[in-house]
C-alpha cells in the first residue's frame, strides 16, 4: 500500500500517537542515561531461538532464513523512550555495512503495524530494515528479554554472541568494530 494512502487511512493510529505525544512531555523529558556502547559477550555463545514473524506488509521473516548473515535482533516498542532514541543509530549502522551480510531485525512488542508505521515515519533516518511484530510477546521470553530495549547480535552460524540491555548507540565505533569482526569470520 502506498505510504501516503496508508498514512491517510491510519487516522486512528495517528490519534493514538498524538495522544501519546500529548501525554508524553514528562516521559520524553526524563533524564535518561546516555546511550551506551558496550556489548556483553555471551560465553559460550548459544543457539538463537528461531522465530517467524510478519513485517509491516505482512511478509513473514524467519530468523533461520538469515543464516550466513550477522543479525542484530532488537526488541523494542514505540512508547519506550530509549528504544526511540537508539533506532536511528541502528539504521546508520545498517547503512554503514550496506552490501555486507548484515541484517537488522527490529521486533516490536505488542503493537500494531499502524501505530509503528506512524512512528517510523517520524524518525531521521527512517528505518529501512524489517520491523517485525511480536503481537503477543511470544518470542521475547524465548530470548530471555526482561525489559525493553534489549538487543542481541547473532553470528553467521545462528549463535547469539552479544547481548545489550538498555539503549545503545549502535553506530559507535566500538559496536561497529565488533560487528565487523563477526563479518570477517
Amino acid at each position: 500500500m502506498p505510504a501516503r494512502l496508508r498514512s491517510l487511512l491510519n487516522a486512528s493510529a495517528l490519534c493514538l500517537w498524538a495522544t501519546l505525544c500529548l501525554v508524553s512531555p514528562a516521559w520524553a523529558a526524563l533524564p535518561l542515561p546516555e546511550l551506551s556502547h558496550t556489548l556483553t559477550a555471551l560465553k559460550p555463545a548459544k543457539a538463537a531461538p528461531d522465530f517467524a514473524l510478519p513485517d509491516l506488509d505482512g511478509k513473514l521473516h524467519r530468523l533461520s532464513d538469515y543464516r550466513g548473515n550477522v543479525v542484530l535482533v532488537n526488541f523494542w516498542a514505540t512508547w519506550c523512550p530509549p528504544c526511540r532514541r537508539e533506532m536511528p543509530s541502528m539504521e546508520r549502522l545498517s547503512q554503514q555495512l550496506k552490501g555486507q551480510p548484515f541484517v537488522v531485525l527490529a521486533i516490536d512488542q505488542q503493537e500494531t503495524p499502524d501505530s509503528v508505521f506512524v512512528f517510523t515515519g517520524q524518525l531521521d533516518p527512517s528505518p529501512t530494515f524489517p520491523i517485525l511484530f511480536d503481537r503477543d510477546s511470544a518470542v521475547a521470553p524465548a530470548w530471555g528479554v526482561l525489559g525493553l530495549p534489549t538487543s542481541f547480535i547473532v553470528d553467521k552460524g545462528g549463535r547469539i554472541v552479544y547481548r545489550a540491555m538498555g539503549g545503545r548507540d549502535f553506530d559507535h565505533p566500538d559496536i561497529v568494530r565488533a560487528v565487523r569482526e563477526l563479518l570477517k569470520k
Partner: protein
Amino acid sequence: MQITRLPSRRLCLLALLLTSPALQAAELTQTRDPDSGLMSWKKQDRGFSLELIQLYPDFVAAVYSSRGLPPAVVDSMKEYCVFGSIAQNQSGGTLAYRVADWRYVTPDGQQHRLKTKPEWVAEWKKLGADFGWSILPAAVSFDTGDWAQGFTTVHLPPGSRFDLIYSWSHHGKRYTGKLENLACAPAKPAER
C-alpha cells in the same frame, strides 16, 4: 629490575582501587524539572545506579488508556504512586537486583513490599490485558553499560513521603542502599 618495577605496580594497583566503582562514595543527585515541577532522585553507589522520577497520576493514566487498555487496568494504577525508574550497572562486572527484596518505609516506620512486574502482569491478565513491559524488570542480572527502565509502583497516595531501601548483589556480595525522604508526585501540577 623487579625492585624498581614494584613501586609503579603498587601505584597502578592503588590508582585502580581508588577509581574502582566499588570504593567510590555514594553520590546522590536530586533535581527538579523546571517545566513540569517534578522531582527526581538518583543514587550512584558501588557500581549500581538507581534513579526514580516522579510522574503525575494523570500522566500514568494517560499512558495506559492511550494504549486502549481496559479502564479496569487504568483504575488499577490509580491507587499507586508511580515513578519512572532507571537501574544502571556501572560496576565493571555483573550486577543483579530483585525488586522483591526492596522495601519502602513509611513515616510510621513500617516497611512494605513493592508490587513487582509479575504481580502486575498476573493481575492484568485477569482483566484481559498485558502491558508488563511498562514495569521495571523484577529480577535482573546485567552487565556493565546495561540499564533497565520502567515504572516503579508504590502503594501510597499522591504527595506521600517515604524512604526506599533497595539492594543489589555484585561478585556474590549483597549491598544495600537507601533513598531517603522521597515524595510521590502531587495529584496535579501546581498552578502557575
